[in-house]
Every structure is written in C-alpha cells, then in structure tokens.
C-alpha cells in the first residue's frame, strides 16, 4: 500500500491525480468548515447579492437567488461522491457475482446470465438511466437506482471474461480435484485474481459515475433543488450564457477536476497493477 503510494507519487501525472482526489474528498468531507456560506447549500435567498460575478467574498460568484457558488460546489461534491460510492457499493458486488457465476459455471447459467447482461448493455447507458429516472420520480434514491441499473453489467462483463480465462488455470483445476465447493472456488480462488482489474475499474468508475449522474441532472433528471448538484448547476447556468458565465463554467470545471483526478489515478493503478484495458 505504502509502496503503491510511493510509486504513484513518483510519476507527475499520477501524483496530480492523487492531489486532485485528495482535494475533492477533503472539500466534500470538510465542506462545513471550508465553505464561506455553509447555509447556502439549502434554500437561502439573498436577492441583494444575486448574480454577482466572481470576487470577494463570493469566490466563484453567486447564483440567481444570491447563493455563493463556491460553497454550493463544495456541497455538491459531497453528494456526487456519496452517490458514486453507493452506486459502486451496490453495482460491483452484483455485477461481480453474476460475472463469476457465468464465467465459472458455464453452460446454461452462462448463456442466460450473459444474454440478460447483453440486454442491459444494448441500451446506451445514459438512455437506460434516463428512462428509469424519467419514468420514476427524480430523487437522489432513484438516481442511484438508475445509475446502478446501468452500471452492474460492465462488472459482469469484466469479471466474466477474466473468470472464463481462469476457469482453465491449474490452480482452479487443483481446487476442483481436492473437492472444493463451487462457491469456494468462485470467491476464494478466482475472485482474488480479478481484484486488480476490479479495483482499477472502480477507481475509474468513481469518476464516471459522477459524470453520468451530472449528465442526468443536466437533463433535469437528477437531484432536486435546493440540494446542490453540479449537473443541474451547469444546466441552470447555461440559460444565462454568455453574460453570467461563472454559473456554468465553475460547476463544469468542478466535474472536470474530479473526474480527471479519478482518471489519472485509475490509469496509474492500471499500470502499477498490470491490468489490461
């Protein structure tokens, strides 16, 4: 772990990734302390200071009801990260289990599971999430549900391909010969060999979940106001371009910074752990 970190910090790009992620996570965790206007995350209106350009004390300017954009972005990170973690916490175990089962057990199990997975993979990811979000109520919970629904098949596919390869490996055959249970072989023998690939994908995906979630809220299918959300901030601000550019540019950059960080980190991990694309 320490060694991995040391390697990460040696390369300037991955060090940048570590730095950005640290900043984003700190911003989210300590938003209450850092934010100059913590109450602006909610339903506060201050029409005396609305639509102010970046300056002091409003670093990134204010929105159309006078809330500090900088504070709101910090809180939006909190929601984004929370959403990312929850989505992966649900999608990864589901996807991995199905992938392991399909890849290791083979036969009919494999055919049925992988066809179902194919169905999910055949709807462009955003479209699937949009349909679910559009048809249900746009709430944070449904948002997580929708993104999770589109996410697990990718883990199924990843683990399926790995497990299918491992199925023929000596250590699996050996375990079968000594009569280990299928569950034991799947989770104790094959799974550990897939961990580096899963871990790398998860790092990259944390970024992409944030990206997709922001896309959903950009289309008006995400978290509802007054909860701060990067995607809806961009969508809302885009109406006031080019005059009030800060309303769009800062939340947009905030998405970019977080996703960029996770990508740099994921890329570096991929190289260190020797995972194929």
């Amino acid at each position, binding site marked *: 772990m320490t060694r991995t970190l040391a390697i990460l910090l040696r390369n300037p*790009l991955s060090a940048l990734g570590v730095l950005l992620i640290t900043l984003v996570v700190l911003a989210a965790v300590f938003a209450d302390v850092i934010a100059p206007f913590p109450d602006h995350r909610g339903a506060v209106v201050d029409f005396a200071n609305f639509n102010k350009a970046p300056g002091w004390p409003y670093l990134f300017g204010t929105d159309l009801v006078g809330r500090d954009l900088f504070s709101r972005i910090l809180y939006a990170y909190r929601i984004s990260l929370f959403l990312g973690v929850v989505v992966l916490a649900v999608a990864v175990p589901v996807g991995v289990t199905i992938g392991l089962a399909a890849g290791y057990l083979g036969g009919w199990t494999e055919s049925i599971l992988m066809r179902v997975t194919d169905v999910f993979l055949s709807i462009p990811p955003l479209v699937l999430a949009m349909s679910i979000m*559009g*048809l249900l109520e746009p709430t944070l919970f449904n948002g997580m549900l929708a993104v999770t629904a589109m996410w697990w098949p990718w883990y199924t596919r990843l683990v399926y391909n790995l497990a299918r390869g491992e199925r023929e490996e000596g250590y699996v055959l050996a375990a079968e010969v000594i009569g280990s249970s299928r569950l034991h072989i799947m989770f104790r023998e094959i799974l550990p060999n897939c961990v580096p690939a899963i871990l790398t994908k998860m790092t990259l995906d944390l970024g992409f979940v944030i990206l997709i979630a922001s896309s959903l809220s950009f289309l008006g299918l995400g978290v509802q106001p007054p909860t701060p959300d990067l995607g809806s901030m961009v969508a809302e601000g885009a109406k006031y371009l080019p005059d009030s550019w800060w309303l769009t*540019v800062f939340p947009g950059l905030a998405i970019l910074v977080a996703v960029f960080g996770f*990508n740099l980190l994921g890329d570096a991990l991929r190289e260190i752990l020797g995972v194929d694309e």
Partner: protein
Amino acid sequence: MSSVTRLILKRLGISLIVLIGVSMLIFTIARIIPGDPARIALGPSASPEQVEVLREKLHLNEPLPLQYGYFLADLARGDLGVSLYTNRPVTADIAQFLPATLELVLLAGTMMILIGLPLGILSARYRNSWIDGTVRVISILGVSAPSFVWAVILMLLFAYFLPLFPVAGRISDSYAIPSVTGFLLVDTLAAGNIAAFANALSHLVLPAFALALSGIGQAARLTRANMVETYGRPYIEMARSYGFPERKIARRYAFRPSLIPSLTIIGLDFAAMLGNAFLVEAVFAWPGLSRYGVAVILRKDLNAIVGTVLVISAMFLIVNIIVDILIAIINPRIRLSQRST
C-alpha cells in the same frame, strides 16, 4: 456461404433476441410507473369518460403480458402509437428526427477515428516524450468531462466570444433544401448547393466535436496502450531487423494488429455517442432523435419513450455488428475460425 456472411447472420440473430429483451425491459418499465398514460395523453381538460375510452383502446385494462402482445403485434405492423408530445405517429417522428442524430453521431464518430487514432499512434511512437505526455493529458481530459460541459465550453468560446460557428440549429433559414435523405450534408450536395453544404457543415462542427471529445480521448488512450503493447511484440523487432521503414512498421506492424482490441472499445464508444447525443442536442438545439427523447421522457410520453429507446438500442446493436464485422476483416484469426465452425 462466405465466412463474413455467416458471421453477420449469426450476429443479427443474437441481436434480434437482445432487441426483444430490450423491448420487454423498456415496455415493463413504461407500464409499471405511477401515472395513467391515458390521462397524460388526453391532456388537462379531458373527462373521466374520455380517459376510460382511451384506456380501453390502448388495452391498458388488460394484464401486462397481453399488453405486451398487443404492443408486439403493433410493432410488427410498424405502429408504435401516437406521441402526445407531437400528436403524430411515433414512427413518423422517429423517421423525421433520426437522420439529424445519425448525421451528428456519424460526424462525431468520424472525428473520433480521424483525430483519436492518429493521436494515439503519435503518442505510442514517441512514448515517454513530451508529445506522449501532452496527448495523454489531452485524452484523459477529453474523457473527464461530460459532453454537455464540452458543448457549453465550446459554445462559449467559439460561438459567443469568438463567433466563428452558429449557436444552434442544423442550417440557416435562408437555405431551402428539399429533404431527400434527411441527412443535410447529403441533401445539400444532392441539390448541388455548395454554400448550403458549407453552412450545414459549419452548424455540425461544434456539436459533433463536443460529442466526439470523450471518444477522441478514449480512442487515443486505447490506441496508445495497445500500440505500446504491440511495439513490445517480437514481430516488431523482426520487422525492424529487416529494415522496414518506421512509418511502415507503425502502420502495418504496430497499428493494424493493435487496432483489433481498440476497435471493440471504439465501437462501444461510438454507440455511447448515441446516448451522449442527448446532452449535446439539448445544448445546440439540434432537432434530433435524442432531443426528442429528452422531451418525451420529461413528458412521460410512453409510446414515444418506448419507440425512441428501441430505435436507439437497435442503432447501438447495428454499430456493434458493424464493429464485429470490421474486426473479422482485420483479424484473420476470427475470420478463419468462422469458416471452420
């Protein structure tokens, strides 16, 4: 039967099964949601009697599997119902809006390939140099922002502050181009109107580029990774030992074999653009199927949602089939294995 034909038929068969699965999935989601489709369809001032009549007509009082049966029967006749958003048959809407989206996605896909692949090749050939570093940062940046952020940024820079490109639409009002294919680039050329073609192209540039950016990044990244791996292969060294020119080695020895793994992912990216088009069309007021999709999703226009998702999924599958065929053409191993089975 040639091996490629066999492959196409096999993939078409699988795709059909998958498409039926997609239709079941989306149909079920559309039917189990809260809200009465008949009430939504009839609008604010309809009477309960009118709603009941429509419910009967739409078979909404039947059990779900039976409803699905009716849906399939209608679908077989090319009838997807009427959209309440436009008050027109969904098939007519799709026929009208699909070309605009395809035109956008095809140009974006072309950009992805024509910009992404060369960047990746460049990066791999000069790996660990500053060129490589720059390309890597650019490509990671490309995938790190959703296309709507790129759309907004590009629009801000190149349509507002530096008004080089138009901000919205497919073509300026002053051109009256008869619609033949629905693809403006084709129609303008067919009409022999070069100025209109240029105008339509200038409308396409920003949205297509915004849509392509993440694909470009992804393509460059993958091409680089796969080429770096290929460059480590013995046959590259062998080719060098024969003194083949580096350009030829890059093209025939490093690029083409490394294209095989890249192509699968590029195909997925290309297909993902169909989804991301939702974001870009919204920003650039692009009258395409994706913008229609957003509008109908926001309005709970069930027929239109089901129709749009089905068509986009079908496109997605078609793209994947095309990619599979391309891979088979490039990779003799797959082509030949098809022959033997």
